């Protein structure tokens, strides 16, 4: 799967959990999910579970801790998708 494809899917997952005062256009590669996009820890779990379903992968506690920015998340997905 191309990186761009992963980014697009991730964008669609993340935007569902944005608070009202954050716009979907604000989702950038270097955006910090909690600090910049205002996503709370409970919704971070939802994002992780949606990512698992979307890419058919399994995430563990260390992946969860590493999932800080949008690009971190893309990298985790890329690593998990490698055969």
């Amino acid at each position, binding site marked *: 799967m191309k990186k761009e494809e992963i980014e697009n899917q991730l964008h669609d997952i993340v935007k569902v959990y944005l608070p009202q005062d954050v716009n979907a256009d604000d989702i950038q590669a270097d955006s910090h999910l*909690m600090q910049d996009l205002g996503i*709370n*820890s*409970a919704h*971070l*779990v*939802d994002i*992780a*579970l949606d990512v698992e379903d979307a890419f058919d992968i399994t995430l563990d*506690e260390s992946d*969860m801790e590493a999932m800080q920015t949008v690009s971190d998340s893309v990298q985790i997905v890329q690593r998990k998708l490698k055969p």
Partner: protein
Amino acid sequence: MLLDPFEKIVANLPYGDGFKFVDHILEMDDNHVIGVYRFRESEYFYKHHFLQNPVTPGVMLIECMAQIGLACLGTYLNKNNTQSLDFIFNESHVVFNSIVKPGTAVIVSARKEYFRFGKLKCLVKMMDENEKKIAEGWVSGMIIKSDETVK
């Protein structure tokens, strides 16, 4: 043992009598819980909601479903955890079908959808003693160690 394990969980919930909306747990395992609560005629909110027409506020019904579905089941799921835990109720979606008059016993059943990364989400349903549906929806919360703060 004086208390059975379910009674022990109910007895140790961190709510005072005026805000504990669980009397008994009928069934509980890793995937579901069924609990009951009788809304006492003496509950303080009936004096105000509504004037001369006491009806249980919807938020109290949601609280009751969260105490059974999240606090009770969450405690059970963490029964092997020795650390002190906090429960943070953080999201719900509930549809109400009927009202609850003072003195009604409600039966709440909750089915775990997932418990991952400290987050518990349950589908919940509330019925009255005639098994008429009062409400249904879902509730979710975070279960964290007491010394951590949730962002």
